[in-house]
């Protein structure tokens, strides 16, 4: 019995050494492979956008490796599925920064990133929010937080600019607007109201309705919207509630035009709208290009590399985010004998000095400074072409006014 106990203790100590001591002894140098991290929701509640986003980022790093890597070094993206769970995101970040020695991190920019920004500063890890959904990410300057695109609220400002232009063309002097939102996007509505965004954009907000993201029907909400006789409906929601709203709109015979977020700009949405025989007059805003736009250089590269003519717009966002990170890594002149901390700091400085990055036309040109870590302000507006089952760019410049844009971050 004594031998058994002794053996148990020896095994326990060996396990302790292997799991705890060995990792702590590793020297934190960059090495022959540049490692970056990715925190993606691949199987969680937002996986409909998270999974293609992760694919886009991973494919871009494969593309870079195929082209010879960064300054002669190969790259590796270590993707962690955080399942939209903040605790998992936090332990994932610790693993990527302490165990895997990542130099930079790419993430969607939603629930987890505000939490990670504090940790990122402590460890000097630049975080690229490729789609930047959260105001907390883009709203103020975080030393290690970078966003290549605007937030939901900024996206709404672009939609308002589009509504004003479109209404003018349709002969509507002051368009009446309904605002549909899920719980998560309500703060955006509050912020828009506080800065008087609707009035300043020349539109009248007549009703706002909450549709739960897991709702089975939007009948009563849409009936109330119908009563208000609106010209436009802004759908700041995920795919499912948006489809429910469009379905009810069709049933009620509404003539209003609908517009929605980048979140909904994908082929799944089109299929669901088709299947539900829903309202089809739909527009979506997006900070990145669609793969339906074959004349854009970046789209051609994606199509050639993946061998597929269509990829979801979230894939393009992942690809563009990874591209921005790689631009920084190239500029930082990372070498294998640099310490990880030095390399991270060099990457941050390099990202801050990026000027007018072309991004192969996938986004508007991106410029960062030490005072501004927000990438592009521009959102494109796309209209669904039902014949070709594709999104087509709606011509015009829908960049919000500088005043409104600045007001947004006063609150």
């Amino acid at each position, binding site marked *: 019995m004594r031998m058994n106990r002794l053996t148990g203790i020896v095994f326990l100590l060996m396990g302790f050494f292997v799991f705890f001591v060995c990792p702590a002894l590793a020297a934190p140098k960059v090495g022959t492979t540049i490692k970056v991290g990715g925190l993606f929701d*691949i199987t969680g509640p937002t996986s409909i956008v998270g999974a293609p986003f992760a694919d886009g980022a991973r494919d871009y790093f494969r593309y870079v490796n195929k082209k010879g890597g960064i300054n002669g070094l190969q790259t590796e993206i270590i993707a962690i599925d955080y399942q939209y769970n903040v*605790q998992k995101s936090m*332990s994932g970040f610790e693993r990527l920064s302490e165990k895997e020695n990542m130099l930079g991190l790419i993430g969607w920019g939603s629930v987890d990133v*505000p939490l990670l920004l504090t940790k990122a500063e402590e460890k000097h890890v630049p975080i690229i929010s490729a789609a930047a959904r959260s105001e907390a990410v883009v709203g103020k300057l975080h030393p290690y937080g970078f966003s290549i695109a605007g937030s939901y609220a900024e996206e709404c400002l672009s939609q308002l600019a589009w509504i004003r232009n479109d209404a003018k063309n349709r002969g509507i002097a002051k368009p009446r607007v309904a605002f549909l939102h899920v719980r998560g996007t*309500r703060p955006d509505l509050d912020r828009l109201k506080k800065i008087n965004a609707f009035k300043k954009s020349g539109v009248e907000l007549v009703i706002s309705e909450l549709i739960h993201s897991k709702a089975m029907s939007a009948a009563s909400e849409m009936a109330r919207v119908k009563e208000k006789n609106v010209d436009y409906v802004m759908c700041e929601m995920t795919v499912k509630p948006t489809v429910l709203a469009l379905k009810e709109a069709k049933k009620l015979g509404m003539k209003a035009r609908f517009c929605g977020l980048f979140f909904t700009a994908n082929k799944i949405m089109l299929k669901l709208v088709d299947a539900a025989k829903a309202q089809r007059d739909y527009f979506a805003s997006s900070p990145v290009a669609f793969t339906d736009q074959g004349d854009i250089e970046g789209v051609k590269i994606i199509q050639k590399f993946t061998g597929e003519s269509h990829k979801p717009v979230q894939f393009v966002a992942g690809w563009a985010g990874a591209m921005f990170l790689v631009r920084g890594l190239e500029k930082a002149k990372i070498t294998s004998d640099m310490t990880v901390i030095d390399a991270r700091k060099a990457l941050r400085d390099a990202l801050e000095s990026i000027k007018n990055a072309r991004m192969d036309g996938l986004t508007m040109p991106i410029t960062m400074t030490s005072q501004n870590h927000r990438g592009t302000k521009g959102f494109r507006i796309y209209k669904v072409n039902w014949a070709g089952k594709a999104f087509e760019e709606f011509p015009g410049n829908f960049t919000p006014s500088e005043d409104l844009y600045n007001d947004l971050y006063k609150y």
Partner: protein
Amino acid sequence: MLRPCGNFKRSYYQDEAIFQTNFQRVFLIAFMILLIILPLLAGPYMVNLCIIIGIYIIGAVGLNILTGFTGLISLGHGALVGVGAYVAAILQNHLSFPWPLNLIFAGTAASLVGLVFGLPSLRIKGLYLAMSTLAGQMIFVFAVSNTPNYTGGDVGISVQKISTFIWMSEKTFFYYLVFLTVILSVFCARNLLRTKIGRNLIAIRDNDLSAMVLGVEIGKYRLLSFIISSFYAGIAGAIWAFYAGVIGIEQFSLELSVLYLSIILIGGLGTILGSIYGAIFVVLVPETLSNLATELNRIMSVDVSNYLVIANNGIFGLLIILFLIFKPEGLRKFWEDTKSYFKLWPYSY
């Protein structure tokens, strides 16, 4: 030296002793020493995992008192953790009280909310009580969402950093804070169950009608169980808020309540050790699988990461199902069976 073959007890005091043998005492002391020096040896990644495990242990011990020892099912434990987190955050941000006081206030506030959650238990039990605690969880989400001036609403709030020792890294500080809190929590819970209160709780769980006939005030003790359990949840939430630095409503959703229930089910319902094993399981197993998937992806010529991510979830789910089928008493029983096997080896009996 002659030693008795077996572990005989000659009194009820011996039977109730926390340490049944000297080896247990020595083993625990050695294990404690190991845990004390761990931050000096392990990297921040491991220390972070230990902190998360510790926070889960505190909350799970609380739920085990309610569900495992009193037999009351709660689907609102995540909300009570949230109450602790939000109260700690609000006090930390707006009042200049020392943080340990905020920690105690957070636990107390959660206890008060827990008392309200527990009121239906005076009349209902079982699935009906589960539904009423679920309603409590929903009300919590609604309340937080609609009080943005205090809680940050759907966006969440940052929590001011607590003052730590200058000669210690923040992570190491939290490690020791969690370590001490876990020891205190486990010690209190273990001893609580040896008191009259603990025995009354167990009597209510085993048969509430018989307990009542024997003179146990079941309403009072059920509420007491809710209060104690919620205090643990509040403390866990407060430490999480201090550690994370940012809290949001989605961190304290129904999923968290279900996770806590899974912890005590996997670890072993009605045992303190079960809460510890369960917390270790739900943190380390997915983490190990995720690490394995990364390594596997590195050695494979094609990118299979997406399949591995899905496989990870599948394996984790499968492990839970297998445990519930083959070891319904949880990991604690598994550990005891394994110990017994080696104690008796090479004989079967």
